[in-house]
């Protein structure tokens, strides 16, 4: 099994609707349907929207010095708006699930395999 991170990109002008509005309920229903199906299929590990890019801080360390910049890492037309973490048998399965997300229709979803990190203590000897 491989873990895949779905990086959800949308247009900067697409704001999350206000709670309580009809739009908000529709968005919640769409996302609930997509992620609910993933959860029932047993592939969903985690998912969440992110606060807007304005709330981002970009961290770089250069020559031992930590540099912080206000805002997202890259100035691009589309911004990274959330993520979904799944565990699937292979890329084909992951791509199918990615295509079911509303973000794939309104924006784009980048599918990135997650590197399996083994903590030093867990590494097999030799």
């Amino acid at each position, binding site marked *: 099994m*491989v873990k*895949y991170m779905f990086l959800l990109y949308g247009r900067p002008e697409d704001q999350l609707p206000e709670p309580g509005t009809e739009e908000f309920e529709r968005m919640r229903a769409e996302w609930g349907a997509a992620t609910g199906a993933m959860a029932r299929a047993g592939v969903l590990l985690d998912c969440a929207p992110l606060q807007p890019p304005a709330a981002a801080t970009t961290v770089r360390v250069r020559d031992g010095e930590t540099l912080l910049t206000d805002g997202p890492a890259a100035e691009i037309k589309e911004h990274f708006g959330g993520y979904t973490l799944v565990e*699937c*048998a*292979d*890329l*084909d399965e*992951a*791509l199918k699930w990615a295509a079911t997300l509303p973000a794939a229709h309104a924006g784009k979803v980048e*599918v990135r*395999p997650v590197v399996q990190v083994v903590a030093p203590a867990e590494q*097999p000897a*030799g």
Partner: protein
Amino acid sequence: MLRAHWWAAVAAVTRQVGDLEVAEDAVQDACAAALAQWPAEGLPASPRGWLIGTARHKALDRLRRERRRADKEAEAMREEAALPVTGWAAGTDDELALIFTCCHPALDPAARVGLTLRCVCGLTTAEIAAAFCVPEPTMAQRLVRAKRKIRQAGIAFRVPGREDLPARLGAVLRVVYLVFTEGHLAADGDALIRGDLCDQAIRLARALTALLPGEPEVTGLLALLLLTDARRDARLSPAGDLVLLAEQDRGRWDRAMIDEGEMLVEQALRLGRPGTYQIQAAIAACHSGVATAADTDWREIALLYAELIRYEPSPMVVANRAVAVAMSEGPAAGLVILDTVGGDGRLARWPQLHIARAELLRRLGRRAEAVAAYEAALALEPPSPERAYLARRMRELR
């Protein structure tokens, strides 16, 4: 002879060790070992079994050395214990899985073609680079990146299920078609390598037809390639100039290839699931089935192009239909259709559009406009045999 077993060997070893890159390197090493050993010791009873067995050992050796892939090694070791060592027939499913992996839509399209020629056809990186006119390191890099993506992204080594097959098969057939057109169209490169690409594409299409006998588009593609390649010798004059279909010496067409192609396209169409390759093959059969260019049934060809537009609504297909309509109903009718697609920016960069317009304008006696259209085609720098043809046409008009 080693190349004949390449596909099956890379497929079988990939299945066993779970890594295309390791498998391909191991098969390469096994072929080198065969070249050193076989002349001295004689052919093994099963050359394919020997190659696969030797390559498997080499692959496992490498994985053992690479401790970081400890889990894959354990898996491969378990599988090795379960497999007989020699003389087993390579699974056709493995061969299909290999080509579906190389043509996976998550890979860069240019890389799919290169990867298929390398892993399935066994061409060297140098040969592939020469065929596509790119420096060898560029092609090598492209192949390495594609193989790395297959491993890192978790692209599965398997034949797609029924629901995914049409789309995934389309991607495979597209690669085979591109291998062929690269060999067929770019006539000004190294002729030997170019012809080899046509042969490789036909070989791939033939193998796919055997592996997927119930898929009419696969059969249709094989028919199309055979019917097109049958004209190979007649397409170029002794001086290397392009000879148009209407002016080709039909006696130099390969009759055996035409017979097989015509038989295959009929067989495919009888299944009642037409598609772009079957229709293109049917169009090619309209040309191959008549003794002289004057006998061509252009009305039938125009109808087939109209049908093709339903599957491939590209301005190029529309332009081809316009030419067929011009042949059956007169140049003015063709020109009307051509001018409906002339505004398309993509098509304006396609020399064939301007050549087609020029031919129709010439036949209508609009000489100045015809010359201008030939000039527009020349400005787009078509392959050199076509350049020579266009220059000749312009001289005739002036």
